[in-house]
């Protein structure tokens, strides 16, 4: 079985601060990990993914994420945050060979100007 946990349902911070959204996963083998973003009223957009190689992966819109096998985490980071980053962020895991994604419940990020 595989699962993804995003422990923070809602994160609020001021523009200019550093943001870090937490994601932990459970999977018995090497996972493929993703972050997607959903802006208000829109569908999900791909941000970045980790397949193998460097633990820090860079994505679109200035985001990066760090894969830590030691504690099964894949946290999303950006500095500084901008008000336009306000959205819901989903962490996802692909395990096995069927290309199926398991999503976390999402973290709603509010960046106050």
């Amino acid at each position, binding site marked *: 079985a595989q699962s993804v946990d995003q422990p923070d349902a809602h994160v609020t911070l001021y523009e200019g601060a550093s943001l870090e959204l937490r994601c932990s996963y459970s999977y018995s083998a090497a996972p493929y990990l993703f972050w997607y973003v959903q802006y208000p009223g829109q569908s999900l957009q791909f941000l970045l993914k980790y397949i193998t190689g460097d633990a820090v992966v860079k994505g679109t819109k200035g985001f990066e994420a760090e894969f830590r096998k030691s504690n099964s985490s894949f946290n999303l980071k950006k500095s500084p945050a901008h008000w336009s980053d306000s959205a819901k962020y989903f962490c996802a895991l692909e395990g096995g060979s069927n290309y*199926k*994604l*398991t999503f*976390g419940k999402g973290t709603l990020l509010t960046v106050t100007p």
Partner: protein
Amino acid sequence: DAGVTQTPRHEVAEKGQTIILKCEPVSGHNDLFWYRQTKIQGLELLSYFRSKSLMEDGGAFKDRFKAEMLNSSFSTLKIQPTEPKDSAVYLCASSLINQDTQYFGPGTRLLVL
């Protein structure tokens, strides 16, 4: 290139009705996914097709939900009969075979009264 398209964007149904949601994947994509998104459950996989073959039918959704892929560029999701608990946003996503990034459509917001 056109992205994933879904129709209708909004649907209102009476309990017990049959509704059909439509999806056109990105041209050339071989994998197609149907998800249901609710605030409480988050994103749940309903069906997954690879090259028009049904790979997964979402287990718990089998009894009233049926997805079909009539050709490589068109898929439908039928809900029969609808129940109020089916009110949700239904998302379609596609990806290239052996690629990991899924591209999401705008979704269909379904309200069952």
